[in-house]
């Protein structure tokens, strides 16, 4: 059975590990130089080469796409192709029960995929570590590894995603029985899960930190007009890499509150200010703005920020990996049930 599995998957196996190896070589060649650069420069963002930025964003893109690709092209046809071409009737009548047949196929695939993605994510996490979340001196920055964009492409979670996508594809293929529709459906479900988890699950896996602070020049992040021309203030947390979940102004009673109207008088009126959604840069009349902040504080206004601090990174990573692996286990169990009971 192991021989047959190897014979059937060796092409995919070689392709996947070949690509991973090539990626690792590229990262290994550029990584040390990047680390030196980061160690010697305060504003490392400004001295990054185009190649570095390409690799940074490319690494995110590759790890975002890899599990989906694995789910679609490895998981979905895993059983569906056999059902489609009728070869299940050949292989299920060799002296191996179909449960064992599926177990070996899945075991081999899960192992191969997990190892490949683990190597890739380790390499990319190591490579990007010195520059994750760096801010430029003037403008521009690279995303922090806590933000949803980069969190999913760092650490251990990509392994969970890849295993999940593989088993999702397998189950969908088993149920749909056709490779191409199974691929499309797998992709749709996987993308939905990938959007749903950072929106609704990840913020609450570990209780987030809530911090209340006085709005001041030190904590201020920006003053904005939202779409309905309401004034809003955002502040930043102590760590630049924190993942801010909500950022709102509360009054003395701790209720969410609008910024009092007198505060508008504190602001200069630059050309774009009348536009909804425009951002006002905090600059010239610093003295008067400080007075305004003091008055806000006196009236009891505070800024309440709910966030996952950067220190939660690894706890969040392991928690999410656990969730995905548990879901994968459930999918595998369903696949075994289905192949025994429904496909007969």
């Amino acid at each position, binding site marked *: 059975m192991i021989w047959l599995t190897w014979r059937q998957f060796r092409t995919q196996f070689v392709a996947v590990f070949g690509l991973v190896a090539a990626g690792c070589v590229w990262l290994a060649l550029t990584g040390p130089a990047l680390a030196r650069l980061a160690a010697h420069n305060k504003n490392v963002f400004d001295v990054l080469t185009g190649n570095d930025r390409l690799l940074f964003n490319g690494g995110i893109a590759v790890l975002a796409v890899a599990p989906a690709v694995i789910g679609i092209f490895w998981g979905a046809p895993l059983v569906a192709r056999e059902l489609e071409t009728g070869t299940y009737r050949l*292989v299920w009548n060799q002296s191996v029960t179909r449960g064992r047949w599926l177990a070996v196929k899945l075991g081999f695939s899960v192992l191969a995929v997990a190892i490949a993605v683990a190597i890739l994510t380790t390499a990319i996490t190591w490579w990007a570590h010195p520059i994750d979340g760096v801010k430029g001196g003037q403008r521009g920055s690279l995303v922090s590894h806590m933000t949803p964009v980069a969190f999913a492409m760092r650490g251990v979670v990509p392994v969970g995603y890849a295993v999940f996508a593989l088993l999702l594809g397998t189950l969908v293929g088993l149920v749909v029985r056709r490779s191409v529709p199974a691929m499309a459906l797998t992709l749709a479900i996987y993308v939905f899960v990938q959007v749903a988890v950072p929106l609704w699950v990840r913020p609450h896996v570990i209780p987030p930190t809530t911090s209340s602070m006085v709005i001041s020049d030190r904590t201020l992040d920006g003053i904005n007009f939202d779409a309905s021309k309401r004034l809003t203030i955002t502040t930043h947390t102590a760590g630049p890499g924190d993942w801010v979940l909500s950022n709102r102004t509360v009054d003395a009673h701790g209720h969410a509150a609008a910024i009092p109207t007198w505060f508008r008088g504190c602001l200069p009126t630059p050309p774009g200010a009348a536009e909804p959604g425009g951002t006002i840069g905090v600059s010239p009349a610093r003295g008067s703005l400080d007075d305004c902040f003091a008055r806000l504080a006196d009236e009891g206004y505070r800024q309440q920020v709910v966030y996952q601090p950067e220190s939660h990174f690894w706890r969040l990573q392991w928690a999410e990996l656990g969730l995905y692996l548990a879901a994968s286990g459930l999918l595998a169990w369903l696949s075994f049930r289905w192949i025994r009971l429904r496909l007969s």
Partner: protein
Amino acid sequence: MNAVVAAHGLGKQYRRRWALRDCTLEIPTGRVTGLVGPNGAGKTTLLNLAVGILSPTVGTIEVCGGRPAASSAQLAKVGFVAQDTPTYAGLTIADHLRLGAHLNPRWDQAAARRRIDRLGLDQRQKAGRLSGGQRAQLALTLGLAKRPELLVLDEPVASLDPLARREFLQVLMEAVAEEEISVLLSSHVVSDLERVCDHAVVLVDSQVRVAGDVDRLLATHHRLSGPRRDPDSLPADQHVVWASHTDRQSTYVVRTESRVLDPSWSTTPLGLEDLVLAYMEGSAPAVQSSPELEVIP
């Protein structure tokens, strides 16, 4: 246990349609049994139940003394050449033989190689490049090299040209003679089976119509023709399988254990094909040549 396949009240339902109903039969060990019936009669369903690809909705089926596909030991006892003889298009013939060797405890690699050589096939050839006849031979080789107690073949020759058909059946018969295995094969072409089978099961409209040794079936079925008469006037031990009437003449196919003594009948023996056709048509609701439809003014 004398029966290699024993089914009791076996039925298989797909959503609302019954593909096989109330099937009770015993297929004796050591014989070549033909499963005959028109397309859609439930032959494939019955065979898939026998090898455990499907499991029954109602009833039970035992094959070689066990529940089909219940364990790897059970799987090893039954060889299966599925309909359209599926093979892995991307694997070579040698790969298929290795597959068989890895997955079956009683695999006979030497015999498998010998068979492939005798067919004049190159082992390095991919199965996807083989002709239909060659693919069927490869599937048969896999089924035989497993050295099963029972070999099940589902319409193995349906898609083959007459020459490939004859070659396939010849190889099968030689193997049966050598290995002393039981064979259960289905076909909707009776003439194929007539050459190779010594036991037959006729399946029409998802039910077993008749089953028995071919010799015995032929000895107990007769075509009677003579002056027109009502089926009720036939002796009680003559079971009408098929009837056709013209204004003056009646033709019956009857099953009877005793001899037909009525001198007004001219009695002719039936071939297996005629016999099967009689069962197939006899169950059809309205036969076109039925005179009853014509006499209505």
